[in-house]
């Protein structure tokens, strides 16, 4: 696994590595407080069946999706490190099959914090072409390569937490539990390394933090995110999702945080982001300064739903980010 990572690390230039590392450290500073402050907490996780073979585990950081079948459990996102014991216990209590696969939607600590622990609790799916790997090895971790790079270039590398199965093309596909699993890269959205995870037979799409129904999207500009890219990603999601009768059900969507949704909520979220973006674009074209845009409260109908005056991502930061991107 290490050789594989080293090989992939060579794909980026030294300049890119330095920039990526700097951005990663900034993000760690931002998110590690969330992780540390939560370490002494007991997390109450909640398991909900979504449809088909897919479940949601809510609480303890970002949402976790589980694909469960006769072969084993596939875990999409492993929550905060401090919640990993509860996550493993929940899986073991409810499903009598081992954890074989882990998928990361992106590289933030509230989604990959438990990678090492969850991988160690499972094991690799044994097969005749497993390349000499022992079936006692940890479960395999899949992600876009941009999730792996900051982890292996950090000062302290926890190799057990690093995705070893990465991809650089537009998508990655494999079979698990008789179900086709697609990781579809969304460049420059929430981060530069976002993957949508689509379980085709169960008809469930896992969005990661591209879609967070409880708050304005966090655009991690320092790690390659962009508002335009996130709008594009939401529109890409709409090409995958097919609703059932009367615009509900059909393809279900698990957001990065919050409840189970379907196309309607994704459309509303896309509409919200596009409308605010185009209002600010118009304001800039009319020569309004950032302060004038803030005073105009151009997101005022959405602020009570998605906004926050406190925390690490406020409504003001959201507006500032859009303004900065459109001013470039």
């Amino acid at each position, binding site marked *: 696994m290490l050789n594989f990572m080293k090989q992939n690390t060579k794909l980026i230039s030294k300049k890119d590595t330095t920039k990526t590392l700097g951005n990663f450290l900034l993000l760690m500073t931002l998110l590690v407080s969330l992780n540390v402050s939560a370490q002494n907490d007991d997390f109450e996780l909640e398991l909900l069946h979504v449809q088909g073979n897919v479940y949601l585990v809510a609480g303890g950081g970002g949402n976790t999706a589980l694909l469960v079948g006769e072969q084993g459990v596939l875990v999409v996102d492993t929550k905060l490190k401090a919640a990993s014991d509860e996550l493993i216990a929940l899986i073991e209590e409810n499903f009598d099959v081992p954890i074989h696969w882990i998928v990361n939607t992106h590289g933030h600590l509230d989604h990959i914090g438990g990678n090492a622990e969850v991988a160690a609790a499972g094991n690799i799916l044994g097969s005749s072409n497993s390349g000499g790997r022992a079936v006692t090895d940890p479960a395999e971790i899949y992600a876009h390569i941009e999730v792996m790079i900051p982890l292996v270039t950090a000062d302290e590398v926890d190799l057990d937490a690093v995705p070893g199965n990465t991809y650089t093309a537009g998508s990655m596909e494999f079979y698990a539990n008789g179900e086709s699993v697609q990781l579809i890269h969304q460049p420059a959205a929430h981060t530069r390394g976002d993957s949508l995870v689509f379980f085709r037979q169960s008809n469930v799409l896992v969005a990661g933090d591209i879609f967070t129904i409880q708050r304005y999207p966090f655009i991690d500009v320092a790690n390659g995110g962009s508002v335009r890219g996130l709008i594009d990603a939401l*529109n890409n999601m709409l090409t995958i999702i097919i*609703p059932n*009768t*009367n615009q*509900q059900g059909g393809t279900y969507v698990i957001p990065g945080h919050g409840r189970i949704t379907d196309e309607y909520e994704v*459309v509303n979220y896309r509409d919200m982001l596009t409308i605010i973006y185009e209002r600010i674009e118009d304001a800039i074209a009319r020569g309004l300064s950032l302060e004038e845009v803030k005073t105009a409260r151009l997101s005022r109908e959405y*602020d009570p739903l998605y906004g926050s005056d406190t925390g690490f991502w406020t409504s003001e930061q959201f507006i500032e980010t859009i303004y900065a991107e459109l001013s470039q």
Partner: protein
Amino acid sequence: MDLKKLLFCLLIYSVMSCEVIAQVDIAGPWGTRRHEDDVERGGGPEVGDYTGLPITDAARFQADTWTATKWSVLEHQCEPHPADYGPSFSSMLIYRDINESTWQTNAYKLVMGWMTPIRTIWLDGRPHPSEYAPHTWQGFSTGVWHGDMLVVTTTHIKEGWTRRNGLQRSDQATLTEYFMRNGNILTWVSIIDDPIYLTEPLIRSRDFEIELGYQMIPYDCSYRDEVGLAPDFVPHILPGQNEYLTEFSERYNIPFEATRGGAESTYPEYMNVIKELSE
């Protein structure tokens, strides 16, 4: 036990019994009667008509920038009316879901004539779902009998609309309803509490009359692009540029300020304000 205590106990028992025993049955085909809901029918309310609605500034701003072109967007074309707006719009069929072992009514099923969304009102005392459960157009409803009145509480409703002119109702709203049957008349009172887009509860009543010949018509909506919109097109009007906002005020000679809604405009005293504004 003396007679007074016995009578008191009987009184308490009778009141408690009324909580759980239905005295009437609301099942049947119900024809809508266009009374106070007439403005919501057909083409719907006019742009900019927010009169008498306790809306927030956020709701007003959203409606001011709304455009009916929204309904040309593929993903919006097949949206049915949500549980709180459906009764404003069409006739309906209510039928009982019976447990064939106990012959008790598990639930009422309620189907609106427009787009035939099926709603379930559970009567078996089950709890409402987790906050992480999906929201639906009809939400999750539980009902209890208070004498002859069925009281229904609904949560988990998808974001919808207070009026079809851009006034939104959020997905955080709770709907409380009172179904009262008097012979062949069904009165349906609904109260919406929405912490996002309403400053006070919005109370509406609708009347239906039994209509024995009423037949549901299957409705299978499939969306299609007939005008060539780009897939990522999101219709909206930029703030301050909605030229239609004053049409309602001008057509009915109502002061523009009085068309803007707000809790104060829901009370009779507001007539005096309108008079002052008109002078």
